[in-house]
């Protein structure tokens, strides 16, 4: 790739990672612009990773006030209330993130994410949302897809010991090194087609392979419940469990799936797990960081299109949930 060489300062700071992904990838990173929404523990982890990696800029959106909940798994928030008096969650996190790497521009955008127009999202290469409603997720994803350039979209959520990540790279072309028949490395071009969030979750459950992670279904139930009840994400408790289980039963019936496929114990855990479990934040935030670096650098196979982790069994699983034709 043409373009300025890395400065001496960059070469020294990024030495160890340039050895992993190369100087070209490092230059691409330094020109990339990233937007995140929902400053909870998982996103805080991701922001740390991507600021350290040396992206061009990171913009934070989250006008909420700092609450005890937000503080519990977020190391970007100092515990001293005087330090965030009157500041939003995004502003407090921004101050901490700036210290991690002076070569990255970290800033805050105020406002309601779902009201931002296409010209706003057009400024970014990567958009990440966390802790937002089903409607907002779909809306932002669609806004990204309507732009003339490709803006990659990621949605992440962690509840209790569980985490989920969704990826939409739209049409993604990259080169992959393979060994040819003579064992010589050759580069082949690969094209991946990603469905939108709406398209993914519209795939009938009975058409999915039997072994698809149960977490996928459980998260859809919770998401739907919060949506119909008009709750904010995570604004749910054990009192909601009977209603959640009822909704689960209805959805399973409508989808012709045996309801025992989604264990009640798992539903209970998710209903109660409004707080993120910090080790899971680190894991999902780490995998997300890695995927974003892949997408920006064009190096490595990006995952398609969901990732699930549950600390209870320790598996980190990729599921491709796409309509049959894509």
């Amino acid at each position: 790739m043409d373009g300025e060489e890395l400065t001496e300062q960059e070469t020294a700071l990024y030495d160890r990672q340039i050895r992993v992904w190369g100087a070209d990838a490092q230059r691409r990173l330094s020109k990339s612009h990233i937007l995140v929404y929902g400053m909870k523990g998982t996103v805080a982890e991701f922001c740390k990773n991507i600021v350290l990696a040396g992206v061009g800029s990171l913009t934070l959106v989250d006008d909420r006030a700092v609450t005890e909940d937000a503080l519990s798994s977020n190391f970007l928030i100092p515990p001293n209330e005087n330090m965030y008096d009157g500041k939003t969650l995004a502003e407090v996190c921004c101050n901490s993130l700036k210290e991690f790497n002076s070569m990255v521009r970290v800033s805050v955008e105020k406002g309601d994410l779902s009201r931002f127009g296409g010209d706003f999202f057009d400024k970014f290469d990567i958009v990440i949302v966390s802790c937002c409603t089903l409607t907002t997720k779909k809306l932002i994803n669609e806004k990204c897809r309507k732009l003339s350039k490709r803006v990659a979209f990621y949605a992440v959520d962690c509840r209790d010991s569980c985490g989920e990540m969704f990826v939409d790279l739209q049409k993604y072309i990259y080169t992959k090194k393979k060994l040819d028949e003579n064992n010589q490395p050759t580069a082949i071009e690969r094209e991946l087609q990603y469905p939108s969030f709406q398209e993914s979750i519209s795939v009938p459950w009975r058409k999915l392979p039997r072994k698809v992670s149960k977490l996928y279904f459980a998260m859809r139930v919770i998401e739907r419940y919060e949506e119909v009840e008009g709750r904010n994400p995570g604004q749910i408790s054990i009192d909601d469990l009977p209603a959640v289980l009822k909704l689960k039963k209805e959805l399973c019936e409508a989808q012709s799936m045996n309801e025992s496929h989604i264990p009640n114990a798992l539903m209970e855990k998710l209903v109660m797990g409004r707080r993120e479990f910090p080790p899971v934040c680190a894991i999902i935030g780490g995998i997300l960081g890695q995927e974003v670096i892949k997408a920006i650098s064009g190096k490595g196979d990006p995952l398609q299109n969901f990732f699930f982790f549950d600390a209870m069994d320790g598996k980190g699983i990729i599921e491709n949930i796409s309509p049959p034709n894509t």
Partner: protein
Amino acid sequence: MDSLCHSSAVKGAKVLMVGAGGIGCELLKTLALSGFQDIHIIDMDTIEVSNLNRQFLFRQSHVGQSKAKVARDAVLRFRPHISITPYHANVKDSDFNVDFFKQFSVVLNGLDNLDARRHVNRLCLAAEVPLVESGTTGFLGQVTVHVKGKTECYECQPKPAPKTYPVCTITSTPSKFVHCIVWAKDLLFSKLFGDKNQENDLNVRSSDASNSSEHGEDVFEWRNNEDIEQYGRRIYDHVFGYNIEIALKNQETWKNRNRPKPIYSRDVLPEHLNHQNGNVDKKCATDDPLSVSAMTSLGLKNPQDIWSLTENSTVFLESLKLFFACREKEIGNLSFDKDDQLAVEFVTAAANIRAASFGIPMHSLFEAKGIAGNIVHAVATTNAVVAGLIVIEAIKVLEKDIDNYRMTYCLEHPSKKMLLMPVEPFEPNKSCCVCSESPLALEINTHRSKLRDFVEKIVKAKLGMNSPLIMHGSTLLYEVGDDLEDDMIANYTANLEKVLSELPSSVTGGTMLTVEDLQQEFTCNIYIKHREEFDEEKEPDGMVLSGWTQASLEKKDDNKVVGNGGNTSTSMPTEGEREVELDEISEGTEISGKKRKQPEVSAGETNSSNEVQRLDVVDDDEDELVMLDHQDTSNKKKKLQ
């Protein structure tokens, strides 16, 4: 396990972290967020600029300060009410004995080297404290759990020796760039700037034993009648010209190889370089010695550029000149250090000139530095993921939830849809001499090998002991310690120089020796078998240790003598490097290596016999994993995909 996220054991736990580097920073943060309240952390290192891209608790202004202390202060900023006790010290210090370890509920390793990992493993076994071990290299990582009597210990699988190369490949027949690097670093650099008295195979061994350079004046000495440039050119012509000519005389060697081309300085450089004498002095006076650079004084900017032969030759002479002009005091005591810019420049240039001579592609300084320094490839994301996995295992250990202990691999390419792959821990290896106290056998020539050879090559190098004590029956043959009487020290020193059969209590075939490390509380019995002859190339130690192995993994590389990386290599990647041709699984820090067909991360290094035996990650970005079948106990390799 319902309580994983709300474990009551977390608050009361006292944990020891060893290593405050790449994994350590992430781990300390995640422990603090997860509710741990009493954390002790040991790290002997200070902060360097190249740490800052991932060790996020550190800032530019902290460079040079203790990692353990700065990490503590940084975490207290967001969790002020917990207790973090830092130790800026080596975990091998005698203060950190079994009693020290006994106070902890669990020990968490984020180390970068094999020696320290083995040491901590033994202390944990002796203190009966569970150990969670980890390592990363690039996008690969692994976390394992070691509980005495329940799961295998860290050493149940013998660790692969650091990569070494046959002597003659390095001295006479290099075929890869790494061979040139090893030659430039371990032979030429050491000869010119290191301990002159060390044995060194720099001069090409010709079949003719009366080779003129072997006796008489040492060609590597700077003579009174020459200036620094004449000296540099003489060395240049000797090692890149004359020595190659000598080697070419041995027709047999080149029958099936490309003949190298001798290179003389007059062929690539003008007769006289521009002397900038005044300049040299100025360069030295102002800067601290470690910032002296041939690249700077020659105006070469980009470390990613591959220099021409002429540029390499100029850098070679310039860096040699700068060593003598600015760092003369250190000459005779220098050993290669990847953070020593001038040393890296010299080694890069010398390796490239040698590569040119042998028709091997030249490399940039950036690449050469990675190979020569066994630099671990390291990124923040993998360390964050691994730290999360460590905390999850630590909580299970505190909950004594044995059935759910897992070792987990972070993969670069998914296997069975998994990027994070948990595997049930293996049972202790019954032939492990560390946790099962099973005896070892040593074949050795008891009439020729001295006690010193046994101590250096077996007790220290193979058994990883620091303060050994050697006994034959009730007779003490050797011991190390601070509180020994002078006459005992004299006695032991004398014993070191004796061959085994002539020790006060004669050691011969059939003898059982007991070797003990008091600090590690580790004892090992070794059955001695006398053997007359050893193959110099294949068994360079002149002795063969056996018994502590798993047959299938026992195969070692033949012929290794010259190493790249020496003791810093670790078998678990620390945060490592992913080798190109040569490096860490720890982010703690570094590995040595070569073609990393089995990244540390590979299950192979730590597992024993049931599930994933070994997953070899093919090093060319191919998405193909070769691993042993999960269910298979017979070590059969199976190809997935």
